[in-house]
């Protein structure tokens, strides 16, 4: 593995850890943006240019901004008095450590039948576009419908006012 992989992986894991452990919510949002950027670089290092740039556009461009908006709208920038971790934090840590142990054990114990160094796949954005409107046209339409419904639903849910409030 190249040093770039270790550097980008360390950045991703450090960003994710900081997002989970830092106390001020705005710092968590910034740290999770670093983790998203690291994952985008990992996609790029896997020769998936389209997915990498989609990750940068959607996650760093939209989801991170959305999270910051939600934090500021809910006064999340103020630190809570009784700590940021839930009462059952120990159980959560144990469960996630167990999940990581199981996944890591499965990965390390597997016998790989795939070749160690596959040839770089030649996939252009043109190929992806053709596949999207050819083989994957039905999922594409469903995702379009889902995004429309989700956007309208999010606006309606967040806009809801109690009767007599105004």
């Amino acid at each position: 593995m190249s040093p770039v992989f270790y550097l980008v992986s360390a950045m991703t894991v450090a960003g994710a850890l900081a997002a989970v452990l830092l106390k001020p919510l705005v710092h968590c949002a910034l740290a999770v943006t670093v983790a998203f950027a690291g994952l985008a670089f990992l996609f790029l290092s896997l020769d998936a240019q389209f997915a990498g740039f989609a990750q940068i556009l959607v996650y760093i461009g939209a989801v991170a901004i959305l999270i910051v908006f939600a934090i500021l709208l809910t006064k999340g920038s103020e630190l809570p008095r009784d700590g940021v971790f839930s009462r059952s934090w120990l159980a959560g840590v144990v469960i996630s450590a167990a999940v990581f142990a199981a996944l890591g054990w499965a990965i390390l114990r597997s016998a790989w039948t795939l070749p160690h160094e596959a040839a770089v796949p030649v996939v252009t954005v043109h190929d992806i576009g053709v596949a999207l409107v050819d083989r994957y046209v039905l999922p594409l339409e469903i995702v379009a419908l889902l995004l429309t419904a989700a956007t309208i639903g999010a606006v309606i849910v967040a806009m809801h006012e109690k009767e007599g409030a105004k």
Partner: protein
Amino acid sequence: MTPLASYLLVAALVFAIGLAGALVRRNAILVLIGIELMLNAANLNFIAFWRYGPHPEALTGMMFAIFSIAVAAAEAAVGLGLVIAIYRHAQTTDLDKMNRMKG
């Protein structure tokens, strides 16, 4: 260790961190951040298997990751809208304080 295994290990680590974030934090927004991290780790698995799989030109893993990114974006929008609606109702985003089914 093969390159595929190291990518899968990084994805497993990010997934476990996201799961821990969703389980141990009090704030509902942090729980959503944890869920986003878990979805991203799954996407990394799809892309890694696409890259080192036998038929990358079929684009299956890549397409799954792209659709998963789109669905995750919709999920983030709805989830944060729900958090804002609950905050307006209960004046808190602390999940330990949300212990009543009836408002």
